[in-house]
């Protein structure tokens, strides 16, 4: 199961990387979203995939499931939700003001 998950993470990372390397804003943002999902799965996997155990130490004699990866992932999901939402709004405004969603046309510092 773990190897399957790691392969899935690998696929997601490569998809995300491919999207990030493109020039279109919206693809890049989708790429970051996919990357963050990949790392959430990674945290879940390296935390150990166990079924059936309870996460509370006083509730049974074990084996216990580690609940911490889930808490970490929830936090990371909230943060990536906020960042992605902000990025989308920012990208939209940039598109409106600059008239382009292509990063190739958004280069340059002093040529206002």
């Amino acid at each position: 199961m773990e190897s399957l998950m790691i392969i899935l993470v690998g696929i997601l990372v490569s998809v995300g990387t491919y999207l990030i390397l493109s020039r279109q804003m919206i693809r890049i943002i989708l790429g970051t979203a996919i990357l963050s999902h990949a790392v959430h799965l990674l945290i879940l996997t390296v935390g150990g995939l166990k079924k059936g155990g309870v996460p509370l130490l006083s509730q049974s004699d074990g084996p216990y499931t580690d609940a911490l990866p889930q808490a970490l992932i929830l936090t990371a999901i909230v943060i990536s939700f906020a960042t992605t939402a902000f990025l989308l709004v920012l990208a939209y405004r940039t598109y409106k003001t600059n008239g382009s969603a292509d990063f190739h046309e958004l280069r340059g510092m002093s040529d206002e």
Partner: protein
Amino acid sequence: MNNLIVLPLIIPIITAVLLVFLRESIMLQRIISLLTMIAVSSITLILLNIVQAEGIIRLDFSGWLPPFGILFVADSFALLLVFTASIVTTICLIYAFSTIGNRHEKMFFYPFVLFLIAGVNGSFLTGDIFNLFVCFEVMLLASYVLVALGGEIGQLRESLKYVLINVVASWMFLVALAYLYGTLKTLNMAHIAERVAEVGQDPLLTTVAILLLLVFSLKAGLLLFFWLPGSYSVPPAAIQALFAALLTKVGIYALIRTFTLMFPLDQGITHTIIGIMAGATIIAGCMGALSGRDVYTIATYNVIIGVGFILIGLAVGTESALTGAVYYLMHDMVAKALLFLLIGMMIYLTGETVVKNMSGLIRNYPLFGWIYFIMMLALAGIPPLSGFVGKILIGQGAIEERAYVLLAIGFASSIIVLYSLLRVFLASFFGETTISFEDRKPIPKGAYVSFCLLAISIIYIGVGAETLSVYVKDAVHTLVNPSIYIDAILKEGA
């Protein structure tokens, strides 16, 4: 347990939220935000003195004992940085009152500055590496908004790149955390340090350490600074000063914490890499500062040189080098804030950004000119100003460790810093004035107050280094003996 530790994080957050409801009354927003920052600074000062008396204190959130819960740890190093950051923010706020303009103030400028400082203080104080990630994100989200606030073409374009770079960096941070958790099964920084010491720093852990190095380097602008000049040039001066003073310093703090506390064992690899990166950063920063024709380029590359110089202290890693790094960190926060505020004022007065188009400012604004002069000398490291103590101690450490190349690069960079800033001084402040005495714009009083306060801080850090040395010594003592930090967290809880 001492609930005071959480106040530098929670007071700014609560005030920021209250200010959202006071959107229309700008005067009230200014007063409240200023009072908040003064309160945070004084609380930190109190905490700093408590730590001197009682040793490291910690606060276990909701009573979960380490290593299970999230906790805040207050040692001298963190508190010194929180204190400096809060003071600098207070002064930048004073500058912002007279310059930032109504439009920004109504678009929640003050709440976001307070969120930024909450994230910065949280990053300094936390004792849990995942919590460090969360505080980083609080700080970064506020900074994303502050870069884009105003919505001009350049701002939107640069902020998009800034956000994307940081999203990718945060992603790598999470990957590093995943592997760290997978190998060590803990995220408490002291507990990580203990387990690393138990199992030895095997190649897998060194890889995780290098991944963390990469992440923090991106945030600190250590070698991976390509995003920095663009995004630091677009927002208004008060925000630039905050960024230059705080954001890269949080990355540096994280680097120092990681490689003195958690992964100090494989110095042959990690500290060599840091040394090479620091040297390369300084060289690249010097090239940028020399080639720049507009003040923004010169100032942003000076930030990069500063980052490289502080990390020489970490790369060398002796007690005196780390003492120098702590002094230089504090100096750099104050001096870089002043640099950016002064440059913002120069641009406001002349309407120009290119150095050679400005001229003769010192005739109309003598005090302004001399404050620039003081700041320049401090950044170059001339005694008795603030840069001197840090430079001399880092230099001493480098000689002890026979790191002569880094020493040469570091001290050569002082000359370049002096040259690049002197060029601005000679071209823009001396020479024929282009604006007649009658046509000149007055400098707002609030701006003068903030310049003077920062200049006084610079002189104080230099002249009063002796009074600070109690705190700095304690901070470095903990840095070179991580067992003090580990015991303070794990011994009582066990």
